[in-house]
């Protein structure tokens, strides 16, 4: 086998250095910190306390509440997001519907994804303001008695965040699906049409099975993103979690634990690893359901 010149390794060095400093070190440091009583309020050195942080967090009702909140925000979002994206992808790739200005439409649906979360939070405040916001006016017109105070109950806050996440991400998901569909050989469609298959048959019988890997990728990346959801709930409600603490996700809890409440870095690090384990378990479970045991393990590798 031909050996590569050693200078090639030098070219790779900057990446590995950055990777070691910004990824490996924080991961290892978070892991070791999770077994200590390290705290930002104390100038004393941290002590090893074993698995105490893990025990405490797993027994904390607030942690499990944040677990529930995270799912309550992510699940409706991914269902609606996938449905919308599939619909858009199906329409935009249907050879019988010759849409004009597809490029512009793609840019428009992708747009929310490039807007900063802080900007979106300001928009959310304006749109969902219960007295003067556009959403209530749109839903109930001048019937003020029916206006919903969107930030008065945990479930409303969850619904708002979930809806905003859908709006932000369905364009991205649709574009992923469109590229998945467009990469399919045209012969499949032509053969199906020649055999007299209907549009719905083509979609469910050919398109969906073929784009399954793309959908799995979207589901898993969305699951990871959803379980780590931090920015929007934080910008909207900070460390209070909003009404009924309903918008306190696991990541908001982790950050608050480590940096704002008692500034317990050990506990915050333990939460980070618990969230990691949760994501791992659900990802594996999803892959097993989708691909079966053997293929799931192969995919994880």
């Amino acid at each position, binding site marked *: 086998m031909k050996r590569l010149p050693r200078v090639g390794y030098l070219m790779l060095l900057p990446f590995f250095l950055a990777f070691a400093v910004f990824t490996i070190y924080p991961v290892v440091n978070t892991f070791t910190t999770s077994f200590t009583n390290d705290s930002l309020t104390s*100038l004393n050195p941290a002590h090893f306390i074993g698995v105490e942080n893990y025990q405490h967090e797993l027994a904390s*009702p607030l942690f499990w509440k944040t677990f529930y909140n995270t799912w309550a925000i992510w699940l409706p979002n991914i269902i609606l997001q996938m449905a919308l994206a599939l619909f858009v992808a199906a329409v935009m790739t249907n050879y019988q519907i010759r849409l004009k200005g597809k490029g512009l439409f793609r840019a428009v649906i992708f747009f929310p994804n490039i807007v900063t979360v802080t900007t979106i939070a300001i928009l959310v*405040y304006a749109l969902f*303001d219960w007295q003067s916001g556009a959403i209530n006016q749109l839903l109930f017109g001048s019937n003020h008695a029916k206006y919903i105070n969107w*930030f008065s109950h945990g479930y409303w806050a969850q619904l708002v965040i979930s809806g905003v996440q859908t709006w932000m991400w369905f364009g991205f998901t649709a574009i992923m699906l469109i590229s998945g569909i467009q990469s399919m050989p045209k012969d499949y469609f032509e053969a199906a049409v020649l055999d007299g298959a209907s549009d719905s048959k083509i979609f469910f019988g050919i398109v969906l099975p073929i784009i399954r890997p793309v959908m799995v990728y979207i589901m898993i990346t969305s699951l990871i993103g959803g379980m780590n959801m931090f920015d929007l709930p934080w910008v909207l409600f900070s460390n209070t979690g909003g009404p*009924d603490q309903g918008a306190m996700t696991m990541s908001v809890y982790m950050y608050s634990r480590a940096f704002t*409440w008692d500034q317990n870095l050990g506990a915050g690090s333990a939460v980070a690893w618990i969230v990691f384990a949760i994501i791992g378990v659900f990802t594996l479970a999803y892959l097993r359901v989708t691909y079966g045991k053997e293929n799931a393990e192969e995919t994880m590798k």
Partner: protein
Amino acid sequence: MKFHLPKRVLTLGLVGLWLGSALSFGQWAQGRTLTIMTFSDEFKTNGVIADFEKLTGAHVDLRVVPNEQYMNKLIPLLRTKRDVPDIFVGEAGYIKEVVNLGQSVDLGGAPYYASTDNQYPYAAEMGRDKSGVLRALTWQTTPGGLFFRRSIALKVFGTDNPVEVGKHFSTWSKFIASGKLLAKHGYYLLPEAGDLGSVFFANKKEPYFDANHNWHLDPIIKKYFEVAKQLRDGNMDMKLSDWSAPWMDQMNTPPGKAKVFAYLWPTWGLFFVLSNQKESLGDWGICHTPLDWYWGGTWLNIYKGSPNKDLAWAFISMMTQNEPYMEKLALRTGDFSSDKVVVNTIMDHFNNGDPAGVLGGHQNHYKFFAETADKIDASGVSSEDRVINQVVGSVLDDYLNNKFPNVDAAMKEITTRVQQMYPDMNY
């Protein structure tokens, strides 16, 4: 050949030499750098840094860290003892946390012997650690008041004289009764009932956690909930989220169209917020609330490991001990000074009202704030106020939205939430 310099030239030359040396002697810290870590660029914008650099010849390296991240940035620096600024600050919400770290020099002791004799008691009290040692000083105080619409007051109370209007708000029962009267006329007393938080938080008599880490929920918090609930249930607040666009809009509504009678602001609300509400300028007056209160403020500390303690002290001394300079600064910025002598000296400068013309009737805001500042008691402030006050605010929102059967259940919820946040304390 003899060379004769004219006498006048010689004299001028000598005077010039003397002046030059005097000036360079004044700039005793040339070539040195003072590092200040704070959470706003006000030292730059209000000209303090320029003044200090001119006075000492030193260069000031100003590091600005957002307020909400300030402690997270400061603590690691203090822990590693690397890159620690010569001066670090503490905002009212966490100054107790800062002074209790034990990393600031004792400003009351040698060689500083800072004087707090002329300072408002609460301003000095906030800078003391749990043992009573003076660790931080401030140049400003931030007492607050009820900024009301004169046009509405005239219609509803028959007077817009701040003293007369204040009589309608001197106790909580009168406060509620006046709110009801305003509601009858179609006005809201406040934009949001929760806005009263600053008034009550500043009047806690004991810290949330005592020296033995025991939890105390001051009875004043319960009173806060009761008053806020009465306002909400009596339709006396407009239910506008604070700092939201409608909340700001109401402040900028011209007289005659305004629906909200009053906003609660400290000193800085006058200079930084109300002065920008061009449509409502001149329609405001200030009167007292049933309790005297403050909101905000910045305290300066010198890092005990700093190699530039003399320079840091020169800066803090200029800001907090040098009364002629404090006078100049207060007149330049409109800031309400922490020094009573300064306040009394410049008070009459504002007999024609504030510079932006926010207050109508030539009301002297300096006189008003001076009355309040003297009565503020900060003995109940503790390190955890910043976080726990937010929790209290969040539970209040839930209480106002009828999530709890009674106020005691809401108090219990506060304890539960705080316990989740500070699990290692005693409850």
